[in-house]
C-alpha cells in the first residue's frame, strides 16, 4: 500500500499490520474467526489467535 501523505515514518512491519487490520476485518490483536470458504459449501474456521501467536513467535524469536 502506498502512503501518499506521511505525517511520520513508520517501520515496515506497521504497514503489514495496517493491511492485516483491514484484510482480516477484525483487527489483528482480536481473537476472532477467519472464515475460509471452499467449494461454496465447506466452511473452515481458523482461530485468529493461533495465527497471531505464530506471527509473534516468528518476529521476535
Amino acid at each position, binding site marked *: *500500500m502506498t502512503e501518499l*501523505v506521511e505525517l511520520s515514518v513508520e*517501520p515496515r512491519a506497521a504497514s503489514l*499490520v495496517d493491511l492485516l487490520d*483491514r*484484510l482480516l*476485518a477484525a483487527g489483528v490483536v482480536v481473537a476472532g474467526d477467519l472464515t475460509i470458504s471452499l467449494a*461454496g459449501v465447506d466452511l473452515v474456521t*481458523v482461530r485468529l489467535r493461533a495465527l497471531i501467536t505464530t506471527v509473534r513467535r516468528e518476529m521476535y524469536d
Partner: protein
Amino acid sequence: VSGTATYLYAITRPMSVDQLSGVRGIGGEQVRALRDGELAVLVSTVSLDEFGEEPLRENLGDLSWLEATAGMHDLAVSTAAKRVTTAPLRMATICLDDDAALGRLRKLARAASTVLARLDNRDEWGVKAYAVATEPAQPVAASARSGTDYLQRRRRQTADRQDQAVAAAEEAAGVYDQLSSMAVAACRHRPQDPQLSGVEEPMLLNAAFLIDRDRVDTFTAAAQQLAAAATSLRFALTGPWPPYSFAIIDEP
C-alpha cells in the same frame, strides 16, 4: 490433492478486458472478471496445493506466506479500485471453480449492489495516533531532600503521568470526532499491538475514514492541521486504501 481453485478478490462494477490488462493476483496470475448483469467478481486461478483446506490452514500460520499473499491480494484489489468501484472480499475467499464463484456472486448480488453504490468515487484513508513519550522526569532520588519529600515527588509524578494519559486519550477521541464529521463513514479498528507493529509508543487511535475523492484535499489538510496542533499525540496518515473497512461483504 492437486488441482486448481478460484480465488475471489472483490466484487466490482463490470470491467472490460482492457481495464484488467496487467492486473496480476496471487502467484502473478492474470486477474479475470466473471460478469453477472451489472456486477463482476474478480478472480484468478490458484493451486489447491497452496489453497486447499489443509495447506491453507498451515500457510495462514506462516508469516512470510501471509505477508506475500496479503501483498498480492492488496495489489490486485488496489489496482482494480483505481479503475472501477470495488468492494473487496475478505482475504482467502476461495471457490472450487469459476462456476462456484459466479454462484457466490449471484447470492451476494443484492448486498453487493447496495455496498457499491455507497463506495462510488470514495476511498478509504487511515489515521493512527500514538501517545508521544513525555520528557523524562527529573530523577526523584537525586533531588529529594528527605524520605517524605521523595514520596511526595513520586506521587506527583505518577499523578502527572495519569493526567497525561487521560489528556492524550481525550485528544485522540476529539481528533476522531472531527475527522468523522468530514467523512461519509468512519470506524475505529483495535489499536495495534506494539509487538506486532514495531512501534513502541501506545496507539490511541486506529481509525479508517471513507472519503469522497473530491474532498480528499480538505480531509488530509485537516488531518495535518490536527497533527500540527496536537500536544500529546503523534499521527500517521495512510491512504488511499481500497475501501476494505467499509465493504466487507459477509455471507448472507
